[in-house]
């Protein structure tokens, strides 16, 4: 399995993308651990793999060191809730979303989210590598980002509620985390707004461009090309007449002057 992931990363990740992946030195044991944790991720399609990798990234957002300490406090009070280091991520995520666990065991939710933060801190470069390689394979995968962010926000709100139920709601780190959820909600709504504006803009700009283009064509058809040519010809004729008249005057002057000499 380890070999599979490393090969997948090496094969799918473009050189330019790899250059941007932060260089993190992992021990062989840590690498093995990351591979095990990612083992349960779906591999039936690029879409589902992308969703899970991105979801794990989004779930770990805004977990500050202070919040990690707070979460560890609740886990320490009940050691059985601590997850094994190599617990598959897919199970962790499903646990958070499980409505029964959510209601009955908020400490379990805290433990699960803590595990995700741990996973992100440990295996972030692996995950980013997977995300980049999948995007290089199909850039349209990014279209699902907003849905992933909404799902992640829902799960993160579960953590915030769990901390509140466990009595940590007044803690500064928990409040900062709750505030970050509001910001995230704003950002998601803004993205939705921008998408709608983009659509409206594209519709109106396309419509305008088509109409102006037609208008230009109509004007071009209306322009009387011959009118200008006729006017230019008339000007030339007038010039020619003036020259002819001048020539006659010239001859007349010459005759008159020569006549006066005689």
């Amino acid at each position, binding site marked *: 399995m380890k070999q599979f992931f490393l090969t997948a990363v090496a094969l799918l990740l473009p050189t330019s993308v790899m250059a941007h992946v932060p260089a993190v030195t992992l021990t062989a044991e840590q690498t093995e651990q990351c591979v095990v944790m990612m083992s349960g991720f779906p591999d039936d399609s690029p879409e589902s793999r992308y969703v899970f990798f991105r979801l794990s990234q989004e779930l770990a957002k805004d977990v500050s060191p202070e919040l990690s300490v707070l979460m560890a406090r609740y886990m320490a009070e009940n050691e059985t809730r601590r997850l094994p280091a190599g617990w598959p991520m897919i199970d962790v995520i499903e646990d958070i979303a499980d409505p029964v666990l959510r209601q009955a065991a908020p400490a379990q939710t805290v433990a699960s989210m803590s595990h995700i933060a741990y996973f992100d801190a440990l295996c972030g470069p692996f995950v980013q590598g997977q995300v980049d390689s999948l995007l290089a394979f199909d850039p349209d995968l990014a279209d699902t980002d907003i849905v992933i962010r909404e799902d992640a926000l829902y799960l993160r709100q579960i953590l915030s509620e769990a901390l509140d139920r466990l009595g940590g709601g007044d803690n500064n780190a928990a409040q900062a985390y709750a505030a970050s959820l509001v910001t995230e909600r704003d950002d998601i709504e803004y993205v939705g707004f921008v998408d709608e504006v983009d659509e*409206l803009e594209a519709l109106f700009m396309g419509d*305008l461009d088509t109409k*102006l283009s037609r*208008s230009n064509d109509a004007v071009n058809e209306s322009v009387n090309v011959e009118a*200008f040519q006729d006017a230019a010809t008339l000007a030339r004729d007038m*010039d020619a007449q003036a020259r002819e008249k001048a020539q006659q005057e010239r001859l007349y002057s010459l005759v008159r002057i020569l006549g006066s000499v005689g």
Partner: protein
Amino acid sequence: MRMSLIFLLGASMLVTGCASTATGIQTSALGTGPEISVQQTAPSGTALAIVRYPAFVEDDAEDDFSQAYAGMAIGGGSVNTDPVETKALANSILLKSNYFAMSLYRELAARLPEHSVLLSPHKVMKASDGTLTSEPMTQAESLASVVTVDFTAYSYPDAERMMGDKPLSFGDLVTPVVTVRTDPRAAVGTEGILMASAPLIGAAAGQNYAQGITDATTLQEGRIEAGVPELDFISHISGTPRLSPASTGLRGRAQGAVRAYPIEKIQLDGSALAEMSKDSGDILEAPFTNGFANQIITLINATDANKAAMFRRADVIADYDESLAALTLVGSTDPDYLARLRYADRLLDAEQNYLSVQSLRLYDGVINGEMGAQVRDMLKEEHRVLERRRQLARQQNIATAAAFAAAIGGVAIASQDDNSFGEKLAAQAMIQGAIFSATEAMRKNRLSKGVGNNYIQSVVPALTAQTEIQVDLIDSSETITAIRFEDLKSKLGELYAENQRALDTIATRCTYNAPSDPGTWLGTCENGLANGSGVGVFRNANGDLVEHYGYARNGLADGPGYRIVRAAEGSYSIEGNFSAGSANGAVQVERSGSVALRRYKAGRDMGAAPAGSVIASPFRLGDQTG
């Protein structure tokens, strides 16, 4: 007999004179050189440049336009010309301006970021009070812009004299008459005029000053409405009251001074003009547009984009959200405000992108359409006519020189008393030859003038009629875009309303207690008094309108502020710290011809501020106190 001959010859020479050949300069005083790149970043929904030009004159304004044009000739001298010819010349200005303004648009659009350059054709018309004015035909100027550029391809309004040393746009000659302005709040010492053709400086500054007064008056009534000034060329010919801000040369670096651009006739490459097509290069680029674009970009880089854009942006934002508009003048770090502003900014961007498409299609219609082809044909024909005139002028000069030589020789021989009969015959023949040469010179002079006049009388009216069709494009665009643009704004407004959360602090209207006059404050208010950020307007003890952008406490200016005083002799600004309604501490004072650091105490100038004094600004977030 001898004396009468000499008199006749003298009169002939006087009439024919030495014919001018209507030439121009190969490269503008604006200079050439490597392209200057833009360093400026405009706020959202703000163009970097809008190119304005006269495109059309309404029927009932035609006579007024041509009379005003003839009555305020650039190039000096009295104008005595046929009204029909003047009208044709006036119309030729519109034709040429329409065409050559595209050169500037193309150059700027290529060198500035996408969607940051817009076109604004103007129609010349009569205002409600009967005076001559111009109005934009599209909505481009509803958006803020760091600078606007007026472009007119000018010709002297006397067909008889324009082929001499007078300004001319004909054939391979183009006389650009331009102004580069910013918002009257961004360069107060020059009333917003950054650069202008020398004869236009007074009218442009006078008009921007008047616009500043109008905007401030509207503000005092509680509305943020940024008016659109008419074209400076129209202000010039219609006799708008002048102001005379300090001016400097094109390379001048004097602060608070307008860069004066001399009137110059640019001579295009004749062979390139003869081969010109829609796909060929821009013949105005090398001799003029490239250097002018460099000047414009230099001015954009040197302009405070925030001050240039703030008022008109607030005007546009007010269409969507009045309670936000006045807060955007100096900004805020409040998260609710920032969240709302982000939405509003996106709407402004959408408007800008939409109008940018309109400009691109206008350009396409002018340059790539039949009308563009006809204008190019016209320029080629004019060039041929001009070359013919130049040839005739040269011939006239030769004839005149021959007449002089013959006359002087004949008179010299005839004046000797001891001449033989043969010498007397030779003298008589030379004098008669001189008469013929002089007659010939006069004839060529008439013929030369006739060539240009014939062209103007036949071709320009024909093309002017077709200008109507060209204008149809813009008019139909206007109809399309006016309806669609309003529709777009309406839909954007609905989207905005659906997505907004409440603002804790909103802008309203309340009292601003100026020292001498209860003024109006648009911004944050408490208990009916200015309290927080916004803009205040009042009249000072001299009766001058004063705008104050910044912060207030208990109805008085307090904290960083930017105060503009619209004094009768010209505007000036004070930027720095204020307390209890008056400037207090180190401030920057800008007035015509100078930008200086001064030290104020309770509103009184106490002398120069020490070098290196830090000036508080309401536009720097770090300086905010509200």
